[in-house]
């Protein structure tokens, strides 16, 4: 009985699965959309999504025109955050340039800057920041303040060593650190904070985006491709032919899902290879864990796609319906922007988003080298989503067949 059952299962099942595979292969558009969009997306996203703050255009009004003011400007432009774009004769000209969008930052050094500084009195430098981009403004402000703080400490140190002659502690040892390391080393009763960046010390943004976009890619493209294959029978009216075969509804569905699963896993592998080769994303944790999560993601994508195909009547309708599903899913996944930066009331909803769970897994495993003991809640959620979605869509598809 067991052998007979197996033969029956295998023979019919494989025949159907092979038929699906051949159909997908012959559909040039589907083959293209399995390879081109994922590759293009991962490359574009990886290269273009970069929130790094660098090369901001800096304009200067130097009313002081002294060695001291030039020192200040060179300290601010020392690292690659700011790039000196031009000098302006008056503050009004600078403000006009800032308003017209020719500049990102303006610095006004007052005419009494050197005099006040020589007397040891506080000299105020005006910094105008174009804060249209809130994120850039915040980081740029930090850099300016850090640079000015660093200059202050150097001045303090110079004054202290001038006053005390040979000081006990060599205070200028940290000049090479540059203004970006806003660390106060000198002076009495100082507190310094040293920052160490773990897991991604070079601050490569692509590691964050690529490891997150990966899940978006699998689910969105997976759902589009599977909706395209699932709708075909309906669009061409071949459902009756399927009903006439001795295969049961479950066999038909399983035979439809299996080839899709294999092809989409191939696509996921391709994307992983690009992440590794083009962006050098470190594969610190277990690859099997990532692949398991990928498999769940692929199943989720197939589930979403099949569900959409049961709602639609034609291929272009599936695509239009997916417009209602995919962009919100992608935007609320934390793949492009951190979930923590979303408004408080949206954050719990991301728990219902499979892409968010996948992004958490792939980032923890690939970049941080975490194991199953850390990511198991996310993996469980993913398994739950894939079972639920495949179950619901299989049920709806079966009802359609009947």
């Amino acid at each position: 009985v067991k052998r007979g059952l197996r033969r029956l299962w295998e023979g019919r099942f494989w025949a159907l699965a092979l038929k699906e595979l051949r159909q997908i292969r012959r559909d040039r558009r589907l083959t293209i959309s399995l390879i081109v969009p994922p590759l293009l997306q991962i490359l574009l996203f990886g290269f273009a999504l970069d929130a790094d703050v660098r090369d901001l255009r800096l304009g200067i009004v130097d009313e002081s025109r002294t060695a001291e003011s030039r020192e200040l400007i060179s300290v601010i432009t020392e690292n690659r955050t700011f790039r000196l774009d031009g000098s302006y004769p008056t503050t009004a000209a600078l403000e006009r340039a800032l308003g017209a969008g020719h500049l990102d930052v303006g610095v006004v050094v007052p005419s009494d800057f050197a005099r006040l500084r020589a007397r040891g009195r506080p000299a105020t430098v005006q910094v105008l920041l174009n804060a249209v981009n809130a994120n850039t403004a915040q980081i740029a402000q930090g850099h300016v303040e850090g640079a000015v703080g660093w200059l202050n400490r150097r001045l303090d140190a110079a004054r202290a060593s001038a006053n005390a002659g040979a000081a006990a502690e060599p205070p200028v040892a940290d000049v090479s650190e540059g203004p970006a390391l806003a660390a106060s080393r000198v002076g009495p009763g100082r507190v310094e904070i040293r920052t160490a960046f773990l897991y991604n010390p070079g601050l490569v943004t692509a590691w964050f985006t690529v490891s997150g976009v990966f899940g978006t890619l699998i689910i969105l493209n997976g759902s589009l491709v599977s909706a395209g294959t699932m709708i075909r029978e309906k669009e061409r009216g071949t459902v009756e032919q399927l009903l006439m075969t001795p295969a049961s509804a479950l066999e038909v569905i399983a035979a439809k899902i299996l080839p899709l699963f294999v092809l989409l896993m191939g696509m996921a592998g391709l994307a992983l290879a690009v992440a590794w080769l083009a962006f050098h994303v470190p594969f610190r944790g277990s690859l099997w864990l990532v692949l398991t999560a990928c498999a769940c993601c692929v199943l989720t994508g197939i589930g979403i796609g099949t569900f959409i195909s049961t709602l639609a009547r034609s291929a272009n309708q599936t695509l239009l319906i997916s417009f209602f599903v995919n962009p919100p899913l992608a935007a609320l996944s934390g793949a492009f922007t951190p979930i923590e930066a979303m408004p408080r009331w949206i954050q719990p909803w991301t728990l219902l988003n499979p892409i968010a769970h996948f992004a958490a897994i792939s980032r923890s495993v690939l970049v941080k080298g975490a194991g199953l003991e850390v990511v198991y809640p996310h993996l469980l959620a993913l398994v739950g989503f894939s079972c639920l979605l495949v179950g619901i869509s299989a049920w709806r598809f079966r009802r359609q067949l009947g």
Partner: protein
Amino acid sequence: MTRIIAQARKDLTQILRDRLALALALILPLGLTALLGTAISLTVTDIPLVIQDLDQTPLSRQYADAFRSSLTFRVVALPPATSPETALAVGRARAALIIPEHFAREIRRGRLAETQLLVDATDTNTALLTRGGADQITRAFAQQLGPAASSPTVYAATRLWFNPGREPRKFYGPGMFVLALSIFPPLLAALAMSREGEQKTILQVYVSSISAHEFLLGKILAGITIGLVQWFLVLALMFTLFGLRLAGDPTPLLVGSFLFLFCVVSFGSLVGAAIPNQAAAIQAVAMGGFLLAFLLSGLIFPVENIPAALRWISELVQARYFVVVVRDAFLQGGGWPAAWWAVLAIGIIGLVYYGLAWRTLRHMQVKA
């Protein structure tokens, strides 16, 4: 002219009859703009932080309290017998502050007290914000300590222009305005055009007396009409949900918007004429319109950060120029002097798309 209007009326009727397309045209732009504009932000507040205080003195607790009371950080408890590194590894916290032993003693003796901040740099932008916040708190704390050490010689007075509260919504709202207008109008235009190819109705157009320009202008007129409705809806959202106001002369925005709609609808018509298959045309517009507008136009991430090898593509993307026009109208208020070149660029790209669409239209007969 009457033929153009007749063609436009026919296309509008077709869209009005398709309930799915209508929902896509009117509800989705509103919903997506509202959702994306509110959800997308890079500025993390409440970064979870664990503090390991090895000193346990009033002074070290005062330092820890400075972190606790800041808006940037949210202090989470470090479970006993856990190292800060583990808290980061399991994702309990994004950063860990370690206050060493003898922290208070070193300060009181006038020596350097060095604390350490470990940052989970998986998310690089958040890592930078974390460092900036911690630096600021530490500087403020150091200044409170001794009056002798506290008078800085140079003082930077920073003024934040155009968005003084650094509200992310004011930056991303206009961006989503551009995104909605660069997806939905061309999508409907591509649908309308590829339908003619798919259902072979283009042959009827060929045998009728309408010229290619009239046919195309009619289609574009219908597309722009729907685009204008979307424009009004999304603009109303900008004024209400995002709290934006026009900062200056609104004429660059009006002219720019009209040209932009002409440009994207021509783009949609071009794609629809080139691909006589509705499903494939939708995918092409989604890829072209969405990806290019989302990634290569500076909506979220600065264009300057795109590698030079790819950056030239963004010069060809109409959304990149429209972003400049919209942000200028809502935030900077520079008017024509600041935005004329962007409006001009949108017009030129639109004319190029129109020309290409007209050329492709002449070959549709062969395909059908």
